[in-house]
């Protein structure tokens, strides 16, 4: 081994803790980048292959009851490549291990069974025998949660009669990767089942022989949903059709897309920031290490080593660190990414979900780190080799210190060492700033990594405490007369009942349109309130439409503007309505109207599509039983269930991500603070040793350095909080979800946590540095000049 390589090796060993700290910083930067983006690409890839192999449909439409022959009209529409009809029914389902009923979607099977669009994946058991009644396939997530296996029984009220359903198989469908129970904004595998049944049997049970109420489409290569919408609507309108939905409006796909989009935006922003911060630190640390060797560099030059050879030598140092960091980072990233994908496995129901490190992502992360390290090292080497060797070997000329207005005022109050601290900080503002900036970034990334928890808590509080105050939500298959309210009020344990009229609409404003629902409510709803920007309940105005502020933003609307409401049921009229107010909602993008106004719009009497119930908890199970006997109610949802499911899914994923990111951020923070202090120690060791020699005690000498570190930290805290706030702002801007919105809300606890972690890192570092100072070899430090 050549002497220069030996030098490298020895220095790496000598600086092992520092190197380890930088390797960790780089590793965490690379790891978070690789983990998030690889998880995203693995999920996207799995979804794409699942969709492709199962012929996932391009569009959906439903009707009340259309004769089978209508399918020929649909197939004749230009752009429609395939159209497959089926029967879909909502019903409630009794499950042995749950007091409350589950809501189920009963879907007819195609013939032949494993053909057509949205092809099922039979996971266990067999297909239902054609013509044999009572045999169903159950969706795998629901079956897993309730430990259902082929041979088990379920019971439900079908067509007014209680029927026994026999589970013969377990299946997965690309349409129901997420199954969203009717009336719930959130998927819920526990309370929402998909059942598949032979078409003839299903048709017989619901009097749908020779008819269909649901149709799925595959479109031609160049066709778009928009193109076929009008024609399909025209064909289905006489049969009670209510609009075409593309994939973007398909419940499961929409949710999946939203989750992936979030993962992508989180995955792109946070780790990019981490990687950027790691790169910045790598750059700063390496340049300081190299600058500290300026005399060695001069000696090498004097001995006849050329600039390039010296440059290569330090580049090797940088590359070694980057290489170790990259190996660690890609490894950790693979573990972290696999853990994330594992988490999604419970949540994304794909038949195959394999995690793989995305090669391009890993290469990008490594390249960014390598470039940062090399730039840092090379810039410092250039600085060192630029000086003639003779000059570089002399100690750098003393920096020009002076007394500014600030320090002059301060100095009167300070002791001699205090003055040294003040002048050092004030006279090399760039170094002070860079050190503080490094620490500030670590504070900032901890905030950026963990603030989403605060935002999530806020979303939960507003949505599930302030807005939604019901216990149970019952949904009807069609809009019914409000007589059902009396029936519900008479049920055991019901304390309060409120009817809801939910009307599917398409909103048009200029070039924008958006498909959603308008919820009709009373003047002062008690069980489902609207919350204004001040987080207090707001009243619904007599007339006009209230939309969530985010929906107004998307449609580019303000209070007082008119928009077109296209009603997707009944006579499908288009009506112009004024925006009367905005609500601050964090879940979903809906519109709200006074029930009276909505009735006028729909041209109907007092009708409702669902009811909200406040329930006495002691009589809850009794109520569940009774609810199923109310024929009008086809779905039952619980606020606590929605809350739980929100908590279990989004919150769990968020929390895991937050924990992973926070750990990475903390490691980066510790690395930064430790390195900063160690390098400062090397840079200042002569000065500090001189002080010891002339009679300062160890405590006094360490005091100077520790005070400097403390001042840098103090400076970094407000800066870090500000940077953290800005990063959070950037992340929120990147999250574009229809399902929920994150407010920019960072709790004092998060600021305190971030500052605390960095302060503890600083404190521990200070202790190790203090030990180093105690062991400072005074004579050696003064005699030899490294």
């Amino acid at each position, binding site marked *: 081994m*050549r*002497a*220069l390589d*030996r*030098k490298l090796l*020895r*220095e790496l060993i*000598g600086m092992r803790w520092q190197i380890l700290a930088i390797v960790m910083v780089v590793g965490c930067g690379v790891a978070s980048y690789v983990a998030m983006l690889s998880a995203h690409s693995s999920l996207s890839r799995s979804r794409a292959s699942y969709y492709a192999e199962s012929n996932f449909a391009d569009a959906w439409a439903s009707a009340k009851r259309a004769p089978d022959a209508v399918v020929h009209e649909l197939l004749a529409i230009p752009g429609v490549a395939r159209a497959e009809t089926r029967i879909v029914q909502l019903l409630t389902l009794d499950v042995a291990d749950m007091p409350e009923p589950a809501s189920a979607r009963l879907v007819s099977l195609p013939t032949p069974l494993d053909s057509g669009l949205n092809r099922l994946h039979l996971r266990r058991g067999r297909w239902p025998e054609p013509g044999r009644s009572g045999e169903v396939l159950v969706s795998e997530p629901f079956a897993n949660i309730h430990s259902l296996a082929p041979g088990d029984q379920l019971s439900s009220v079908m067509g007014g009669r209680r029927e026994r359903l026999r589970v013969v198989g377990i299946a997965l469908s690309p349409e129901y990767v997420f199954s969203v129970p009717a009336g719930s904004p959130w998927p819920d595998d526990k309370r929402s089942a998909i059942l598949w049944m032979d078409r003839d049997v299903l048709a017989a049970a619901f009097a749908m022989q020779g008819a269909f109420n649901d149709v799925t489409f595959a479109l031609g290569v160049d066709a778009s949903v928009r193109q076929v919408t009008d024609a399909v609507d025209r064909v289905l309108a006489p049969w009670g059709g209510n609009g075409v939905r593309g994939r973007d409006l398909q419940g499961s796909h929409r949710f999946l897309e939203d989750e992936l989009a979030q993962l992508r935006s989180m995955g792109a922003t946070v780790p990019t920031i981490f990687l950027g911060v790691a790169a910045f630190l790598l750059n700063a640390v390496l340049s300081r290490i190299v600058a500290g060797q300026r*005399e*060695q560099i*001069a*000696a*090498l*030059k*004097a*001995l*006849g*080593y*050329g*600039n390039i050879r010296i440059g290569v030598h330090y580049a090797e140092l940088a590359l070694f660190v980057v290489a170790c960091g990259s190996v660690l980072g890609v490894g950790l990233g693979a573990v972290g990414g696999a853990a994330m994908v594992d988490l999604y496995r419970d949540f994304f129901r794909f038949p195959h979900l394999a995690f793989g490190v995305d090669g391009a992502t890993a290469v990008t992360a490594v390249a960014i780190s390598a470039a940062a390290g090399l730039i840092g090292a090379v810039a410092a080497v250039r600085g060192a080799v630029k000086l*003639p*060797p*003779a*000059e570089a*070997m002399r100690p750098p*000329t003393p920096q020009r210190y002076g007394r500014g207005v600030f320090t002059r005022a301060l100095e009167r109050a300070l002791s001699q060492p205090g003055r040294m601290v003040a002048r050092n900080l004030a006279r090399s503002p760039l170094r002070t700033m860079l050190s503080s900036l490094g620490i500030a970034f670590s504070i900032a990334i901890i905030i950026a990594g963990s603030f989403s928890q605060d935002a999530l808590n806020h979303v939960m509080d507003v949505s599930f405490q302030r807005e939604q105050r019901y216990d149970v939500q019952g949904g009807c298959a069609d809009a019914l007369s409000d007589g059902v309210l009396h029936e519900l009020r008479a049920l055991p344990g019901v304390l309060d009942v409120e009817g809801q009229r939910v009307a599917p609409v398409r909103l048009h404003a200029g070039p924008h349109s958006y498909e959603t629902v308008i919820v009709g409510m009373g003047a002062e709803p008690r069980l489902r309130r609207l919350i204004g920007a001040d987080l207090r309940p707001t009243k619904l105005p007599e007339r006009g439409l209230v939309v969530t502020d985010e929906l107004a933003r998307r449609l580019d609307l303000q209070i007082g503007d008119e928009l077109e409401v296209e009603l997707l049921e009944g006579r499908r009229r288009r009506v112009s309505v004024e925006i009367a107010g905005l609500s601050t909602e964090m879940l979903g993008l809906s519109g709200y109207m006074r029930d009276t106004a909505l009735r006028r719009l729909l041209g109907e009497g007092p009708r409702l599509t669902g009811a909200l119930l406040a329930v006495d908890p002691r009589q809850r199970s009794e109520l569940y039983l009774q609810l199923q006997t109310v024929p009008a109610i086809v779905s039952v949802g619980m606020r606590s269930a929605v809350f739980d499911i929100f908590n279990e899914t989004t919150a769990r994923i968020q929390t895991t991500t937050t924990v992973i990111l926070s750990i990475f951020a903390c490691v980066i923070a510790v690395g930064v603070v430790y390195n900063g202090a160690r390098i400062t120690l090397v840079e200042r060791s002569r000065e500090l040793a001189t002080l010891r020699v002339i009679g300062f005690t160890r405590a006094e000498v360490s005091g100077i350095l520790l005070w400097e570190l403390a001042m840098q930290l103090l400076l970094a805290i407000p800066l870090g909080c500000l940077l953290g706030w800005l990063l959070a702002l950037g992340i929120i801007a990147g999250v574009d979800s229809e399902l929920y919105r994150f407010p920019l809300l960072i709790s004092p606890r998060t600021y305190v946590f971030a500052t605390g972690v960095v302060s503890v890192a600083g404190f521990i570092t200070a202790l190790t540095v203090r030990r180093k100072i105690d062991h400072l070899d005074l004579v*050696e430090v003064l*005699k*030899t*000049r*490294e």
Partner: protein
Amino acid sequence: MLDPRPAAAPVISARGLTKVYRMGEVEVHALRGVDLDLFEGEFVVLLGASGSGKSTLLNILGGLDLPTSGSVLHRGYDLTRAGEAQLTNWRRRYVGFVFQFYNLIPSLTARENVALVTDISRDPMSPEAALELVGLSKRIDHFPAQLSGGEQQRVAIARAVAKRPEVMLCDEPTGALDVVTGKVVLEVLDRINREVGTTTAIITHNAAIASMAHRVVTFADGRALEVRRNERRAGAQELQW
């Protein structure tokens, strides 16, 4: 005693060297027109108080620094016209440096510090032979921090001599050492000059060292004031300071 032949061509020949530093608003004239020749096999002491410009001269002679004006010829090759890469190459082949503060690489052992030079030289001595020459065979695997100042300086000398340089340039080689250790170091330099025949120039402010030299050049205020030839060269152990 081997006396260099004054008639012989100089190894290094400097003419009209000036060097002006700018420090803030002040111009410092470190050299104000210096002529100097170093002859083959010669042992020269450049004597002067600190600030007399002698270090600047040594750095320029060794190709570590460039003069503001004037020329430095090494066997007819003009160093002042050479580029950075050529100077590096030239130093690598012809010059050995010894510095006041040794400038050893702390992370390398004595042997490895010497190997640093032998790695990049044509036909060098082995590091072991060079360390033998300075009497450090027994400390060959020690790190600089495990060596005394005198030993470190002898490693630096071994490092300088290992490439078999034409010229050895020593900047206050005893400046950081006590008398006894300083004498050992000077003895080593003297022996190398006598045995290997390496042209050696030492700069020092210590007048006592002058009596070891063939020739003594006294510096003051950026000029060579006086050139003196010693009739008899004193041995290093005879020196007193």
